[in-house]
């Protein structure tokens, strides 16, 4: 084991891991994080904290991670390349490690045009694949970026993750793209929310054919749908999201007040299906502003209690 990460430990011991996600608030109240954390503690093995998701300004991911850490949760610190250059990112990596963060998720980030500051300048000094290589260099080689490759005194021991969208286009390079991230040093992947299980299985097959599942733990992403409206919105307005029409029809087929329940059923079934797909080592349940449902979903999927 390279790090003190809870999920690295559980994965090495051969467990099927469960992670979830917590979005920081649009304000400075730590109680919001504590409340969400309380709903997830003991329910999952680690909790992602998003980094100004959809480019909307929120409490910093690292700060919210520390608040979760104080509750005894192992946070996964998400970092996007949109807002920081290589100087800020290397500095934050050292700081995160110093604060006891064990996991990092390297992302390119949504474009700022989606958020509340569409007039902002973006950074993109490095991309997500390159970011993986930066953490790896700091951790495994103990070297900073730069001509001189100076030595890091006190290496940041972070378990290195990234995201991948099996449904993004062009489909034929999606497994190859994961290969690049693995080559750069990625140790776990959380995928985009899966609604089209067949297409996901097709991607997984390619991933396994390339032997990538042996080098990197794939956690399948699941986003429970609250309503038929949410499903249609995702299909139409979230780029790179694949929501089959049958699923929307299934939700529409039940009365509005029961659609949430049906959405949870779909999420549970999805977890059970992806669990059987060769190479899948865990699930990542993203219940967006619906954290109270995670325990129910995990339990119904037969994944409770979590291993010590």
């Amino acid at each position: 084991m390279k790090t003190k990460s809870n999920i690295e430990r559980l994965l090495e011991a051969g467990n099927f891991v469960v992670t979830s996600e917590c979005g920081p608030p649009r304000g400075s109240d730590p109680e919001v994080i504590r409340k969400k954390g309380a709903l997830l503690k003991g329910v999952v093995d680690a909790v992602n904290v998003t980094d100004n998701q959809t480019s909307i300004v929120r409490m910093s991911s690292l700060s919210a991670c520390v608040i979760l850490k104080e509750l005894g949760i192992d946070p996964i610190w998400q970092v996007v390349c949109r807002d920081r250059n290589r100087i800020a990112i290397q500095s934050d990596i050292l700081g995160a490690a110093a604060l006891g963060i064990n996991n990092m998720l390297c992302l390119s980030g949504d474009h700022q045009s989606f958020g509340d500051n569409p007039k902002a300048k973006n950074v993109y000094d490095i991309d997500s694949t390159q970011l993986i290589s930066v953490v790896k260099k700091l951790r495994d080689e103990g070297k900073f970026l730069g001509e001189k490759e100076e030595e890091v005194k006190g290496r940041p021991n972070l378990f290195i993750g990234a995201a991948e969208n099996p449904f993004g286009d062009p489909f034929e390079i999606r497994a190859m793209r994961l290969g690049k991230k693995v080559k750069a040093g990625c140790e776990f992947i959380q995928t985009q929310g899966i609604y089209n299980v067949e297409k996901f299985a097709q991607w997984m097959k390619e991933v396994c054919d390339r032997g990538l599942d042996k080098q990197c733990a794939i956690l399948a992403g699941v986003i429970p749908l609250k309503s038929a409206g949410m499903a249609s919105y995702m299909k139409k307005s979230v780029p790179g999201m694949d929501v089959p029409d049958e699923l929307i029809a299934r939700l529409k087929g039940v009365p509005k007040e029961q659609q949430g329940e049906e959405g949870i059923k779909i999420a549970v079934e999805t977890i059970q299906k992806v669990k059987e797909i060769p190479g899948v080592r865990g699930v990542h349940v993203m219940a967006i502003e619906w954290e109270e449902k995670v325990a129910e979903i995990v339990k119904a999927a037969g994944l409770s209690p979590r291993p010590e």
Partner: protein
Amino acid sequence: MIVGNRKSLEEILELVKPYKKILLLGCRECITVCAAGGEREVGVLASELKIARKKDGEEIEIKEFTLERQCDVEYIEQIKPFIDEYEAVVSMACGAGINYTADCFPKNIVLPAINTTFLGVTLEQGVWSERCQGCGECILHLTGGVCPVARCAKSLFNGPCGGSAKGVCEVDKDTDCAWQLIVDRLKAQGKLENYEKIIEIKDWSTSRDGGPRRRIREDLRITS
């Protein structure tokens, strides 16, 4: 070529509000080709300004003049004999030309009438599109001739991001995803294996990030 857009009449009227006598200065290079600041556009803007000011009862005298280039001192010097007769110069060149006119006449007021936008190409008559950001270290040989710096909304070197869908960029449904184009191109060239190579972290010091850039060809310099 360098592509630009003329500012709105309202904005230009605001810029010239304090002046009664201006020199409207076009350029015959790129800004003519992209139909924003050539001799024709100088003529159009001059009449628009005169009409608007006349309506306001604040008549304005405008000298129209279009230089071969506003980025070369030998041409800019042509306005030297008469520039002081005008209270301000309104330049219709690209940003480089406007800067240089201002540099050459540091005591004169030089105002911009053009918003310079990008280095691009003419896709069809009346349609221009960005292709290069002058990053100073070209990698088009790695990406099938499609620039990820200028054409990917996130300038990703190992794209596409998760938002690429049906060939379109997540940012705008009318914009091609650069990485879809790169993959298609590499495939057409039978070089998809190139995609598997990680493009290393870029040296941005050759780009604008290194500060204003200069190019010197000693062999061409005339040093006396």
